[in-house]
């Protein structure tokens, strides 16, 4: 088995998902603005060339400066930041993604280089170029930006729906996975939407336009919102191809997932309704304040959508391959025997705070298995979630974790480690007293081991078979035991 030990950092009362989620939402919003912005600018350049919109050219040059300042700086650096942040949250996850798809990422990089080159060429020289040269540069910029989405979308959608990759480990089976196309098309429309709404803000912010010119430009920009009518269809397509259990989270199975999905859908409906009825059909004028509000709604929709996309992968970060606590499905059986933290070379930072060796072991188990999604007493804190359980309940629920909550991964350690974690939870719930008795009863360990064996190592998202055997991990089959529920 690979060396799986990395130093694990503590983000205080904040869970790691909030850190990566916060940055991810911000980055996705900026990146999609850059992609949609290219399409929108091609449209305005075409309008200018054909003489269909007198102020289009002036707007375009102003809009492009905003795009460069926002996207080329904050967008590009938050992209690099996503890599660094993912390393902080789950080095094994990003390691798997890079190893599997490094040539895809390298290919995406060549498009990113083209995007930067075409963008800066237009930024520096655009005003003085012929219409043909301007359009060509904008087209190159747009194609490059969209292809960046194309490549990254394949990697991100693979995490939830790895498709044929699960069996053949082919990069292309994983890349062109079941949710690739609906996700790509959906994101393309989202990009156009964000760019159009941002355009309405910029049109109002540029003081050089008359009221009539603004109305004209807003009407043109609103045309790019029309593809939003396809979003419900693409959304349904996406939901249809994701795994059944993931779909169930957003359909009431998880209150948080359902709520965020609702926020995303509601915000999209509001934007779409206003755009289609108000801006396109009624040809209403939109002020800077309203445009900013609509753009903020779009940010909310993006945030909700990204939260759901990340959340519905649970208990995996790569479906059927890597659990959210960075344990590979095929490593579980070995970790059940050897222990999850036996080989961890990194000591505790505050070992002296724990009165017994067993609690120190429990703290290491928490750090290794739980801390990626939970804090001890802060957001999603274990003492809040499990503090009221009896000791016996804690032992059984954690031993059968994937069945206690199907979006939880199976416990990745031995019975002693599980008991140490239970004792840590008890000690924390008791207010961290200075003295604490070690739990040394061998009968308890045997009981925990039985529960671990009953639960097996297959994910809880699969139908619970006797012994919990998983088709994906035949070596993890346990001797058959009757389910004790």
């Amino acid at each position: 088995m690979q060396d799986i030990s990395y130093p694990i950092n503590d983000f205080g009362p904040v869970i790691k998902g909030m850190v990566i989620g916060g940055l991810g939402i911000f980055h996705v919003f900026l990146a999609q603005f850059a992609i949609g912005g290219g399409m929108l600018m091609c449209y305005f350049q075409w309008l200018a060339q054909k003489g269909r919109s007198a102020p289009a050219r002036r707007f375009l040059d102003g809009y492009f400066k905003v795009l460069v300042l926002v996207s080329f700086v904050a967008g590009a650096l938050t992209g690099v930041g996503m890599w660094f942040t993912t390393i902080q949250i789950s080095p094994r996850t990003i390691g798997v993604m890079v190893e599997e798809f490094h040539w895809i990422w390298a290919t995406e990089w060549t498009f990113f280089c083209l995007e930067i080159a075409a963008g800066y060429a237009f930024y520096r020289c655009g005003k003085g170029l012929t219409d043909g040269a301007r359009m060509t540069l904008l087209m190159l910029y747009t194609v490059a930006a969209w292809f960046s989405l194309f490549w990254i979308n394949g990697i991100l959608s693979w995490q939830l729906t790895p498709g044929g990759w699960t069996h053949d480990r082919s990069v292309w089976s994983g890349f062109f996975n079941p949710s690739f196309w609906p996700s790509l098309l959906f994101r393309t429309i989202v990009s156009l939407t964000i760019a159009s709404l941002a355009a309405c803000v910029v049109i109002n912010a540029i003081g050089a336009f008359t009221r009539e010119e603004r109305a004209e430009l807003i009407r043109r920009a609103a045309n790019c919102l029309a593809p939003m009518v396809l979003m419900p269809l693409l959304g349904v397509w996406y939901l249809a191809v994701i795994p059944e259990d993931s779909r169930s989270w957003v359909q009431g199975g998880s209150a948080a997932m359902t709520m965020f999905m609702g926020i995303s859908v509601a915000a999209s409906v509001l934007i779409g309704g206003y755009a289609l009825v108000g801006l396109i059909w009624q040809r209403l004028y939109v002020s800077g304040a309203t445009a900013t509000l609509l753009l903020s709604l779009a940010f909310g929709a993006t945030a909700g959508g990204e939260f759901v996309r990340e959340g519905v992968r649970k208990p995996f970060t790569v479906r059927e391959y890597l659990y959210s606590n960075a344990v590979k499905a095929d490593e579980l059986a070995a970790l059940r025997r050897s222990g999850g933290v036996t080989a961890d070379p990194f000591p505790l930072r505050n070992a002296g705070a724990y009165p017994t060796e067993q609690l120190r072991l429990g703290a290491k188990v928490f750090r290794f298995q739980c801390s990626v999604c939970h804090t001890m007493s802060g957001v999603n804190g274990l003492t809040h979630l499990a503090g009221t359980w009896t000791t016996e309940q804690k032992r059984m629920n954690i031993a059968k974790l994937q069945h206690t909550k199907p979006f939880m991964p199976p416990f990745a350690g031995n019975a002693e480690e599980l008991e140490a974690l239970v004792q840590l939870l008890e000690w924390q719930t008791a207010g961290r007293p200075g003295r604490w008795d070690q739990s040394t009863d061998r009968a308890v360990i045997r009981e925990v081991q039985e529960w671990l064996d009953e639960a097996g190592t297959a994910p809880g998202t699969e139908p619970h078979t006797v012994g919990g055997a998983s088709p994906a991990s035949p070596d993890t089959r346990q001797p058959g035991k009757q389910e004790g529920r």
Partner: protein
Amino acid sequence: MDRMLPFGLPGPTAFYVSLYVATLAVHVVFMNYVLAGVGYLAVASFRGKRKGADGGPVELSDVLRDWMPFATSAAITAGVAPLLFVQILYRKEFYTANLLLFHRWMAILPLLIVGFYLLYLLKTPWIGGQSAVVRGVVALGALACFSFTGLSWTENHLLSTDRASWPGLYERGSMVYYHPQLLPRLGMWAVGAIPTMCALAAWQMYYLQRKGAGVDPRQPRNLARLAIAGVLLSVACGAAYWRQLDASAQGHIVGKAAGPYFAAACFGLVLQVGSWLAHAPRSDFRRQALMVCTLGLALTIAGMTAVREAIRLSVIDVSPLYAQHADAARKGGLVVFVVFFLVNAGLIGWCLCLTRKRSESATVE
């Protein structure tokens, strides 16, 4: 290693090491331009007088101020490729160093964003109307952001090669790592950035000169002085760095593994100094001398980047990673990458050609 890098390594490892070194060398070119350029702007902003409406003859600071945001963007973009390959080659080491430095490491991202925006601010007409102190503070702010990034990268790199220190550093929760090599190594790369900036800026001024823009005739001499000072200082820092290296690393540098690269880098320095000496007494930039300088620069950067890798390979036992590299090499997508690399490189060239298609009616920015 008893053979010249990367030939002493198994095929997949050698392949990724070569890609890493090649892409890192490209990144270093832009990085050097930005680091040294911002440093120069900081000094020049404090010292320089505000220009009049006519602008006056073109000086180095004008060119740098104009191109610095693009160069920063290019440096960041070019940095993505080596960042990708280092994760294939030294995943465990790189990730662990990232994690150990934690917030200290992650701070480079907001600081790079701040530094980047300060460079745009330096280009605005508004800042041109401000006092030297205000302009200097803005440039100094950008320099501080990029210098912190350079320090953090050096720290990260050294920490990644010092496996023995990992558990202790983690236990202490310290986000600062000090190694005796840190300062001389950082100094060598930082002052070594000056000759790169001088060479690239000289080309820019050469083309401005050809276009008939009024380039300040003192610029060749000033750049020559600056570049030669940069070379001498980097040699001094390099000597200090050498003293901190252990015998094994020193043996790699002058031995079969990296000796040819080290020799090429030294020869490159000689070429650079020679071409700058030829420029020093002149009032214009000469194409032939700049080509010699550029050749020297290419040899120095490529050579030193390879030497850098040889030093790392002398410290890290890379043999357990051979199987991991071989696994990565079996993954699909290489052909697609090569095809799009060529296509997109051609399209980037086309973009440059398109910028020459000036409209007769339009005004030139």
